[in-house]
C-alpha cells in the first residue's frame, strides 16, 4: 500500500515546535472548533473555547471520567447537537451537520461501545462502508447487472482491508460471533472503507486485551502514515504516550491543557485533574507515577 509518510512526519515536526497551551493555533488544521457548548440542564458538559486539530497527526483527547470528551466527540461528529458554537472541517462549516453527511465528506467516527452489525456477515459490514454505491438506490438495486461489477470491486477492497486487520478468515462469519477486540478491529477497518480524511476513534482500546492493543496501536500509526488524520478519545495513558503526536486534556467540559505527550504529562493542571491530591498513585501500567516516568524519559 503506498504510504505518504511526508504528510505525517512534517505535521508531527511542526507540532513539536508549538508552545503547549490550550487553544493554540496549528500550522495546518483540519478541524477548528470555536465556543462549542453542550448543556444538559444546568450542567455545561462541553464548553470548548477554541481547538484546532493538526492535519496528518494523531491527536489524543484525554481527561478524567465525565470530562465531556465523548460528548464533545458526539457533537463534532453530528450525533449530538450543540447549544452554541461553530466548527469547520477542511475549511467548510459543519456545525450540527448530520453524521451521514459528514461521513461522505470524509469525517468518519467509531464508537466506544462497538457498533458491529451482529447479524450481518463481517464482509457485509465492510461492504456497507463503501460510499457511492449504485445498488443502494432502490430501483437499480432490483437489477444486479447495474451494481454487480461495483460490488466485486468493493469486495476486493474490503478483503484487502480485512487481510490487513487479520480478519480475512472471518469474512463469512456473522459479525456478532467476533470477540470484543475483533469487533474493534472490524469497526476501524469498516471506517477505512470510506477513505476518510479524519477518523475519530472513541476509546479504541476499551476492553481490548494487551496483545491486541499493540496491534491496534500499529494500525493507528499505519492510518496516519497513509495521510489520514486521527483523533481519539482514550483513558489508557500508556496508549496515549505511545502513539499520539499531540494530546488535548479536557476536564469539566473545557480544555485545560494541550501539548506533546511529554509536556502534557508534566503539566501540574493535568496531574491535578486526574489525581486530585493523590499524586503518588500510578497512572500508567508500568506502575510509575506520571511525574517519575515522564522525568525519566526527559532525562534519557
Amino acid at each position, binding site marked *: 500500500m503506498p504510504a505518504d509518510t511526508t504528510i505525517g512526519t512534517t505535521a508531527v515536526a511542526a507540532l513539536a515546535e508549538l508552545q503547549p497551551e490550550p487553544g493554540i493555533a496549528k500550522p495546518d488544521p483540519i478541524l477548528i472548533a470555536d465556543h462549542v457548548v453542550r448543556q444538559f440542564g444546568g450542567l455545561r458538559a462541553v464548553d470548548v473555547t477554541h481547538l484546532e486539530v493538526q492535519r496528518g497527526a494523531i491527536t489524543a483527547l484525554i481527561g478524567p471520567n465525565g470530562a465531556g470528551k465523548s460528548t464533545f466527540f458526539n457533537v463534532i461528529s453530528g450525533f449530538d447537537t450543540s447549544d452554541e458554537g461553530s466548527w469547520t472541517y477542511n475549511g467548510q462549516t459543519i456545525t450540527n451537520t448530520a453524521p451521514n453527511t459528514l461521513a461522505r465528506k470524509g469525517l468518519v467516527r467509531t464508537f466506544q461501545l462497538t457498533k458491529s452489525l451482529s447479524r450481518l456477515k463481517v464482509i457485509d459490514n465492510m461492504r*456497507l462502508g463503501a460510499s457511492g454505491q449504485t445498488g443502494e438506490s432502490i430501483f437499480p*438495486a432490483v437489477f*444486479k447487472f447495474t451494481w454487480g461489477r461495483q460490488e466485486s470491486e468493493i469486495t476486493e477492497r474490503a478483503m484487502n482491508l480485512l487481510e490487513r486487520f487479520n480478519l480475512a478468515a472471518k469474512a463469512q462469519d456473522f459479525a456478532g460471533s467476533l470477540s470484543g477486540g475483533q469487533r474493534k478491529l472490524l469497526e476501524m477497518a469498516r471506517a477505512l472503507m470510506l477513505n476518510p480524511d479524519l477518523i475519530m476513534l472513541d476509546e479504541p482500546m476499551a476492553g481490548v486485551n494487551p496483545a491486541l492493543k499493540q496491534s491496534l496501536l500499529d494500525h493507528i500509526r499505519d492510518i496516519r502514515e497513509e495521510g489520514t488524520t486521527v483523533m481519539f478519545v482514550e483513558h489508557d495513558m500508556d496508549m496515549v504516550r505511545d502513539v499520539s503526536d499531540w494530546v488535548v486534556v479536557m476536564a469539566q467540559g473545557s480544555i485545560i491543557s494541550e501539548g506533546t505527550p511529554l509536556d502534557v504529562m508534566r503539566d501540574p493542571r493535568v496531574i491535578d485533574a486526574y489525581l486530585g491530591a493523590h499524586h503518588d498513585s500510578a497512572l500508567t501500567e508500568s506502575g510509575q507515577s506520571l511525574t517519575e516516568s515522564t522525568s525519566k524519559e526527559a532525562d534519557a
Partner: protein
Amino acid sequence: MDFGFILSQSLTQAIGVTAIIYCLAAIGLNVQFGYGGLLNFGQVAFVAVGAYAVGATVISVGSSLWLGVAIGIILAIVLALLLGIPTLRLRADYLAIVTIAASEIIRFAAKSSDFLGGAQGTTGAIGADFYALNPLPEWDRFEFGPISFTRVDMWVVLVGWCLIALVTLLTWALMRSPWGRVVKGIREDEDAVRSLGKNTYLFKIQILILGGVFGALGGMMSAISRGSVQPDGFVPDFTFFLYVMLILGGTARVMGPILGAAIFWFLLVFVEQVLKEGVSSGLITFISTTQIGPIRFILVGVGLMLLMIFRPQGILGDRKELMLDAR
C-alpha cells in the same frame, strides 16, 4: 370423525384467498420489521386503505376497478409518508405507537363515513372487472387431490399466488442488493449505518412505503374476492396475526411469511374442524359449538408461546443467528 373432509378443508384454507390476503400483508411486514426492524403495529391500516380504495372507487364512485387499484397504491404511499415523516426520526417505539393508533383512526373514520358505507361497509360487485378477465374453462369445480375450488375462486387464488410470487421475487432481489444490506444494517444499529454515510431516514421511509404497498395489495385482494369491505375486518388483531405468521415462518426469510401464513390458516381451520366434528359426534362433551371460535384462538396463543420457547427463530430461521445478540 371424517378426517378426509377436515384435511381437505384445512388445505383449501392454507392456500385459499384468506391465506393469500394475510400472506401479502405479512410479506410487507417482513420487509418492514423482519429486514428493516421497523416496529409497524398498524400494518392493517395499509390493508384497509387498499380494500377501501377499490371498494369506494367501484361502488361509491362507480368507476373502474383498475383506477381503484392505482388509487389504493397511491394512498398506501401517502399513508406511509404521513406515518413515517414525523416518526422515523424518533426512536423505534414511537413508530409502534403511532401506527397502532393510525390503524384504529382509519377504521373508525371509515366506520363513520357514509361515502365508505359506514358500519355496514361497502358491498357489491367490486371485482366485476377482475372476474371478467377470467380465462379459465367453464368447469364447475377445479380439483387437485383433496383440494377443490370453484371457477371464480380458482381465478382469485391463481392471480393471488402469482402476485405473491412477484412480490416475493422483488423482496428477494432487493434484499440481496446493497440496498438490502443498508436496510438490514439499520435493523442492527442505525447509528452505525449513519456513521458510514447512509441517510437511514430515506431508507426507512422506502421500506415503510414498500411494505405498505404490499399490505394494500392484500387489502385489494380481500375486497375483490369477498365483494365487500367491512370496517370491523381491520381490527388490530389482524396485525398481530401477521406477526404470528411472520414469527412462525421465520422473520427476515424470503419464504418465511408465505410458509407462516399457510401453516397458520391450516392449523386454525384444522383445529376448528376437529373440535366441530368432535362436538357434533359426541366425543367432546365439555364445550359447545359456539365456544369453538374463541377456543381455537386460545390455542393459537398457546401455540405461539410454545413456538417462542422451543423454536424462537421460526421454521425457516437460524437459531444461531437469532442468538447472536444474546451474548
